[in-house]
C-alpha cells in the first residue's frame, strides 16, 4: 500500500474536487440534472475511494462509522422536519408554501422547502452508502 504514490497523491488531490462537485450537483439540482440522491452518492464515493487507497482503518478515522450511521438517520429526520414545520405553519404535511409568513410569496417557501428536503436526501444517502461500504468491507474472509 505504501509504494503506490500515484494512487495516494491522486486520491488526495482529487478528493476535495469530488466533494465540491457533489455540492455542485446538490445545489445545481434546481437548474440542471442532479439532486440530493446523486450528490449523496458522489459525496460517499470520496470516502469509499479513500478507504480503497488508504485502507479501511484510516478511512474510519476520517469518517467514523457512527457518524455515517447518524447521518443516515439525520437525513430522514430533516426531511420529516421540513414536512412537520410546514404542517405547524398551517399548511399540509410537506406543503412548503406555508413555510414562511402568509404575506410572503408562497414560491419562496417552496424553494427553501425543496432545498431542505434535498439536503435531507443528501445526508441520508451519504450516510447509508458509507455505512453499507463499511459493513461489506469490514468483514474478513472466514474459511470454513
Amino acid at each position, binding site marked *: 500500500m505504501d509504494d503506490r504514490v500515484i494512487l495516494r497523491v491522486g486520491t488526495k488531490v482529487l478528493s476535495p474536487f469530488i466533494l465540491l462537485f457533489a455540492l455542485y*450537483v446538490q445545489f445545481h*439540482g*434546481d*437548474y*440542471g*440534472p*442532479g*439532486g440530493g*440522491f*446523486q450528490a449523496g*452518492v*458522489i459525496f*460517499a*464515493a470520496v470516502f*469509499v475511494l479513500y478507504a*480503497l487507497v488508504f485502507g479501511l482503518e484510516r478511512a474510519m478515522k476520517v469518517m467514523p462509522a457512527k457518524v455515517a*450511521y447518524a447521518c*443516515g*438517520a439525520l*437525513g*430522514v429526520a430533516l*426531511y*420529516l422536519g421540513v*414536512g412537520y414545520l410546514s404542517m405547524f405553519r398551517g399548511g399540509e404535511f*410537506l406543503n*412548503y408554501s406555508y413555510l414562511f409568513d402568509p404575506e410572503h*410569496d408562497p*414560491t*419562496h417557501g*417552496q*424553494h427553501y*422547502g*425543496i432545498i431542505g*428536503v*434535498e439536503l*435531507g*436526501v443528501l445526508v*441520508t*444517502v451519504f*450516510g*447509508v*452508502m458509507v*455505512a*453499507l*461500504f463499511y*459493513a*461489506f*468491507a*469490514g*468483514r*474478513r*474472509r472466514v474459511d470454513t
Partner: protein
Amino acid sequence: MTETMVQIVDVVLLILLAITGIAVIRTRNLFVAVMLAGIYSLVSAGLFVVMDAVDVAFTEAAVGAGISTVLLLCTLALVGYKESKPQHTTILPLFVVIVTGGVLVYGTAEIPPFGEPDNPAHQNVAAHYIHDSGDEIGHIPNVVTSVLASYRGYDTMGETAVIFTAMVGVLLLLSRGSLPKRVYHAGHWHKVKRGMTREDLIAEMEDEEAHDSTVVGGEDEEDG
C-alpha cells in the same frame, strides 16, 4: 442532433450493451463479470442520456457503475473470484429466458412510440407540471426537481425512508457491532476490558478453558 445521428448513437450503444451482457454471462471469472457489469451500467447511463433522462442517467452512473461495483468487489474479496461450474444442465434456464424475452419483445409492440406528444404518459399530470410549475413552485428550471421534491414529496420521503431501512437491515445482518460489557462462557462471566478486540476475547476464553479442566462440556458459543 439530427434524427439519423441519434439512431446511430442508439444502435452503437445497444450493440455495446448486448456485447457486455453476453460477456458477463460467458465469463467464469467473477472479477471480470463485476467489471463488465459496471461497464453495462455506464452504457445504460449513456442510453438514458440519449433519451433525455439525464437525472436517471446520473443516478445509474453513480450507483450502478460506481457504488454497487465497489460493493460487489468487497463481496468478491470474501467469497473468491472463481465461479464454479454449474451442476445442472443449462437447457431449462435457457428455455425460460428465451420464452420470457420473447414475451417482452412481443409486449413492446403495444408500447406507444417514443417521444410522441399524444402518448398516455404526456396526457395526465405531465402537461400541468410543465405549464404551471413555474407559478406554483417558483422559478426552478429543472421540472424533475419540482416534481420529485414538491409535487411528489411523499414519494421521495418514502424513498429516503427505504434507503435508511436498507442501512438498518444490512447493519443488522453484516455488521459485527460493538462488544457487550461481559460475556458468559464455560460456566462464568468474562469481563470485556476497554480496547479489547473480539479476537482477544476469544483467545482469553480459550486460554481459560484449557486451564479449567474441571468444567466438562462447556458450550462452544459462537461470537456475534
